[in-house]
C-alpha cells in the first residue's frame, strides 16, 4: 500500500465525509464524487487513487451511514490512518474491507503531501518523505478473520456453508 497523504483534524464526522443531501442513493460512484465534500470541497479533485487520509481523534463520528467508508473506498483511497476512530465507522470499515489503522504518532507526524507506505504484515507505516517509521497494533484475531475473508458478508457466507460453525 503506497500513496500520498491528505490530512484532516479531530472529530471529522460522517456529515462531512458524505453529506446527508447525497444519501438518497447507494450508487458508489456518485457517493465517491462527493467524498469529504463538506470537510474539503476540492478533495476529490486533488486526491488520486492509492492516496491515504490521515486524521486526528474520533474520525468518522456521527451517523452510522456506511456510505462514509464506501465513499472513501470508492474514491480510491487506500487507507485511513487516525489517532482514533468513532466506533461505528470502525466497524463499517472492517465490514466492507477498507483498511484503517489507529496510530497516534503517525497521525501526528505525517505531513500533508508526504508519501507513505504501509506494511501490513509487520504493522508498520513508513513515511518515505521524512524517513520516519511508525508501528501500529494489529487487529484482534477475530477481526482479522473478517478482513481476510474480504469483509463480513463473505465471512458470513463461509460460516453458513459450514453448518457446524454457527457464526
Amino acid at each position, binding site marked *: 500500500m503506497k500513496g500520498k497523504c491528505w490530512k484532516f483534524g479531530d472529530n471529522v464526522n460522517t456529515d462531512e465525509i458524505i453529506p446527508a443531501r447525497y444519501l438518497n*442513493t447507494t450508487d458508489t460512484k456518485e457517493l465517491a464524487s462527493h467524498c469529504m465534500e463538506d470537510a474539503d470541497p476540492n478533495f476529490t479533485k486533488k486526491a488520486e487513487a492509492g492516496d491515504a487520509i490521515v486524521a486526528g481523534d*474520533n474520525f468518522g463520528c*456521527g*451517523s452510522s451511514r456506511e456510505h462514509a467508508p464506501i465513499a472513501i473506498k470508492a474514491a480510491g483511497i487506500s487507507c485511513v490512518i487516525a489517532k*482514533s476512530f468513532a466506533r461505528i465507522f470502525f466497524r463499517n470499515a472492517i*465490514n466492507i474491507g477498507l483498511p484503517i489503522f489507529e496510530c497516534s504518532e503517525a497521525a501526528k507526524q505525517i505531513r500533508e503531501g508526504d508519501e507513505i507506505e504501509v506494511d501490513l504484515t509487520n504493522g508498520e507505516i513508513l513515511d518515505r518523505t521524512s524517513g520516519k517509521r511508525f508501528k501500529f497494533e494489529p487487529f484482534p484475531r477475530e477481526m482479522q478473520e473478517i478482513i481476510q475473508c474480504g469483509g463480513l458478508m463473505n465471512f458470513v457466507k463461509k460460516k453458513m456453508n459450514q453448518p457446524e460453525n454457527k457464526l
Partner: protein
Amino acid sequence: MGMTITEKIIAAHSGLRKVHRGQFVYANVDICLGNDITAPIAIEEFEKAGIKNVFDPEKIVLVPDHFTPNKDIKSAQQSKSLRVFAEKHHLKHYFEIGRMGIEHALLPEKGIVAPGDLIIGADSHTCTYGALGAFSTGVGSTDLAACFATGEVWLKVPESIKFVFHGKVKNWTSGKDLILYTIGKIGVDGALYKSMEFTGSAITNLPMDDRFAICNMAIEAGAKSGIISPDKNTEDYIKGRVGKKYVMYQSDPDCSYTETYEFNAEEISPQVALPSLPENTKPVEDISGIKIDQVVIGSCTNGRISDLRIAARILKGKKVHPSIRVIIIPATQDIYKQALQEGLIEIFIDAEAVVSTPTCGPCLGGHMGILAEGERALSTTNRNFVGRMGHPKSEIYLCGPAVAAASAVTGKITPPAEVLKN
C-alpha cells in the same frame, strides 16, 4: 467481581455465564433495525450474498423515516426497496407511512423493544433503547445484512462509565439538558467505545421520555450504548405495550467502572450546544440574545409527547416572532394524534408554527426545513455538525424543548423562565 447490566445482557445473549470487558463475542439479537438510508445497502448486500431466507421475520424492523414521505425519486426508490423486501420475507414489523414514526420513538411505543433485550440497528441513535434497560447499539448496513442472515452480531464487550446525577432537576431542565451537560463535560469522544450508565436520584425521578432523550445522545459522546436500570417507571411504560417475556437486569454492587462522574442535577440549567459540536455546551443564560432564523422541535431525541407539552405550555396564547420560522414534528402518528386530542396542535398553529407529519426531515438536512447559507437554527435534535441541516455555512444550536419554544417567541436564544414570566 460482579457484572454491569451491560455485561449481563451481552453474556445472556452470547450463551455465556460471564463476559469481561474487551472480550470478543457473537451475540444473538432480539431485534435488528434498518431505515430508508441504511437498509437499502443491507438489502443489496444480503441479496448479493445469495442468501434465501432471513433468520426470523418477526425480529427485523424496517422503518422508512428519513426522507419520507418520499422527497424525490431517488428516495422513493430507496423506500421501495424496503417495501419489496418486507413483502418478500413477510416481515412483521414494516411501517409504511401513515403507521410510520421516527424509528427510535416508534419501537419503544409499539412495544417492540423490551428490558434485557439485545438490539442492533443500522442507525447510530439505536442506543436510545438503553432507556428501557436494554443493550442497544448502532451498527452499519453490512452488519445489518449479516444479521438478517444469521440473527447474530460481532461485539466487543464495552467498558462502562457511570454517571450519577444527585438531587432533583430544576424547573425547565429536562433529560436533554442533562445529556448535553454531560457531553459538555466529557467531550464528543469522552465515552468512545464505552457504555454510559446513568443513575442517581435525578434519573430515578425522570419520566421515560426524558430517559429516552438521555440514552439517545450517548452516541454523541462516542459511546457504544447508554443504559438506565429498569425500574417502576420502566414497567409502567411497557405495560400494555410489550407482549413478550423480559428480564430487568441490574448492575451488581461490586461490578467495576472505568470511571465514575458525579453531578448535582440541581445546579444544571437548561443547556445549549453551540456550533458545530454537541460538546460546545453552555447554560442558556450565558448565551441568551443570539438571533436565530429557524426553530425545530422534533426528532428521535425530543419529538415525544412530553416535549410537545412543554413547547405548548410556552407557546400558548403567543405568536412566533415575525422574523423566524418554527417547525414542529411529532415523532410518531400516536404522538401526533395525542397532541391533537390534547389541543397542542391548535396551540402551535395559532402561534403560527408549522406542524409536520412524522419524519426525520430537517434533523439530517433531508427535507422539510433546510437552511440556506448563513442561516442559524435552534433545534431540539441531536447533532449540530457542519452542514447537518443544510448549507455548509449554516449553523445549528442544540437545546431542549423549553428553550426552543421560548426562543421561538422572542426570535433569539432565550431562557424559558423569561418568556413565561411575561
